[in-house]
């Protein structure tokens, strides 16, 4: 007998087992339980049952979500009224209602309508869409690549897009050059998008050879990024003054090119990308516990990673093509949300997206009004607003996550 217990039998304290209440233990278990050190009474849980804790933490996450929606709406209203032309909040309401509510019969002045509908509204919406896509993509990529330093540009996307744009601006060359006949904004946009996606696809293809491990993806992205950056540098070097200036402005990024056409094109794309990110939120939650664990929880790690990276990069590449490279939002918005509500991707994705949208909208409103009529690059303002806020949170919360 392997379990022979020759000594005196230990007394077995009655033990209730939540899974097995009342049923007696079998002999073998009895012997093992007998070896158990005298049970230390655990302090009564004063903080409620699992259900209560889950409800309260979920409530806090939902609260942040609602708060961000309100913040974004407020920022939108401020942005619509801010600027050289005097347009009050009432005018904004009348214009917006007049445009989107068929039943609305109020009228607004011609000037107000022109300023709001033609200039400010598309710019506001483009800022929101861009902020959402960059911040959502940042959260998504940080999650599936297990790396907090990752941003939407990591897979060589920004350098690829920059190279595409530079090619169009400097050489007037591009995939669709024969179609457009000349160097126009569309050539720059399509070129930036195509090369952004191309770079990402290249990186993914390389990483596939090694099982798409996060390290390979990140390092491959950095390497391909350098390659395209070298191309951009070369194009800068050979370019004429005019083209050089245009290229530098494009590389800095900004929302001055906002049009309704851009909004109409990008909106469904970003919405679809967000839908994918939300649909796989549970899988990414599981992935945070490690690939093997995620696999054992029924997650197809490869597929989730590909879909997440694909959806995020697609949206980021599309918006970048219209706005140029806007950094920082995609890196910092997810981290601010992480510090506030933790790493539940069901909430982290929408919260990051909303915060990114609000941050970019506020920054862009500042960019076009502070030194009007001169525009400050939006990236400067995003950093000026975002960095102190982020550092404050970081120092206050340290490694803690609040719930």
């Amino acid at each position, binding site marked *: 007998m392997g379990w022979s217990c020759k000594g005196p039998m230990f007394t077995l304290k009655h033990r209730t087992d939540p899974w097995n209440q009342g049923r007696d*233990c*079998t002999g073998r278990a009895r012997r093992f339980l007998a070896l*158990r050190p005298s049970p230390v009474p655990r302090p009564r849980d004063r903080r409620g049952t699992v259900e209560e*804790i889950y409800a309260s933490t979920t409530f806090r996450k939902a609260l942040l979500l609602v708060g961000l929606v309100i913040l974004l709406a407020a920022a939108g209203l401020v942005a619509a009224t801010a600027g050289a032309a005097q347009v009050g909040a009432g005018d904004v309401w009348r214009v917006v209602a007049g445009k989107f509510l068929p039943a609305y019969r109020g009228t607004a002045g011609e000037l107000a309508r022109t300023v709001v509908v033609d200039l400010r509204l598309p710019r506001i919406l483009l800022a929101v869409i861009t902020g959402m896509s960059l911040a959502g993509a940042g959260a998504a990529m940080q999650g599936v690549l297990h790396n907090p330093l990752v941003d939407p540009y990591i897979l060589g996307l920004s350098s690829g897009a920059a190279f595409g744009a530079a090619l169009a601006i400097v050489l007037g060359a591009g995939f669709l050059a024969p179609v457009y006949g000349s160097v126009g904004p569309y050539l720059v946009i399509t070129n930036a998008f195509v090369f952004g996606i191309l770079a990402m696809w290249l990186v993914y293809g390389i990483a596939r050879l090694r099982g798409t491990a996060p390290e390979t993806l990140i390092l491959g992205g950095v390497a391909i990024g350098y390659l395209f950056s070298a191309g951009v540098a070369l194009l800068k070097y050979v370019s004429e003054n005019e083209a050089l200036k245009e290229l530098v402005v494009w590389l800095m990024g900004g929302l001055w090119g906002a049009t309704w056409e851009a909004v109409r094109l990008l909106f469904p794309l970003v919405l679809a990308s967000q839908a994918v990110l939300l649909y796989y*939120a549970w899988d990414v939650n599981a992935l*945070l*516990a490690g690939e093997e664990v995620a696999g054992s929880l*029924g997650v197809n790690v490869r597929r989730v990673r590909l879909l997440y990276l694909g959806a995020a990069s697609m949206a980021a590449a599309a918006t970048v093509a219209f706005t140029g490279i806007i950094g920082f939002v995609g890196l910092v918005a997810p981290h601010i949300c992480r510090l506030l509500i933790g790493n539940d991707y069901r909430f982290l994705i929408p919260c990051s997206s909303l915060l990114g949208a609000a941050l970019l909208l506020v920054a862009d409103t500042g960019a076009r009004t502070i030194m009007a009529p001169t525009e400050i690059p939006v990236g400067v303002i995003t950093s000026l607003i975002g960095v102190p806020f982020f550092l404050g949170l970081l120092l206050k919360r340290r490694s803690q996550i609040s719930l």
Partner: protein
Amino acid sequence: MKIVVRDVTFAYNSHAVLHGVSLGVAEGEIVSIIGPNGSGKSTLLRCLARVLQPRRGAIFLDGREILAIDARQWARQVGYLPQAGGTSFPITVLEAVLMGRKPHIRWGVMPRDLEAVERAMRYTGVEEMARRPLGELSGGERQKVLLARALAQEPEVLLLDEPTTSLDILHQLEILELLRQLAVEQGKAVIMVMHELNLAARFSDKLVLLKDGSIFAAGRPEKVLSVASLKAVYGVEAVVSEGRFGLEVLPLRPVAGRGTLGGDDTT
């Protein structure tokens, strides 16, 4: 038999790690895989957990080839605890255990999910840590939380890779007793990789001793752990005695480094 391993061979690239391993595990049985470093213990467990695919041979769960089972279905039947793997972003204990419900959840968390989580957390005694970040726990507490996650899955089979390594003796005993209880009271099949031979012998129904990727011996602990097998597999001189609480193994010295011999067995 709950799990049947039939003639499994596995190789990393050209380096063969397992050669024709076959074994069976019944419901309510605890089986420990033991053997020296590099003998293929973890590889065998990872094949069982579907992390790795055998090059030849097959593994069956309830008579079905495991690679043919749908991922979600599989996750509801088999819980797997790999060796400590850190998370990159902090999560709370409750979130960690709730992940075990992944195979049962579509998108929304149902009351029965939270009930299962609570049951699992009470069972391993971590219910009062629910709000704490997983990263701030001690190794022993952490292992209990991870075990709770596997239990929240409500699996029939538990696979554990060195569940007690780097834990203090109290936590070692607590974890192993929980596993014992799960096997005896709920009929779960438990397969684990173990290094500590005394604990493996005491808490397992069967041991599987691996040497260079093949089974050297398998069966009841007192049959597997002998002076001869320890010498042949581990290259260690040892004393094996039938103590009050089961088998006791006392390793003495490496065989290669023999200086003085004899007399030890009489002490």
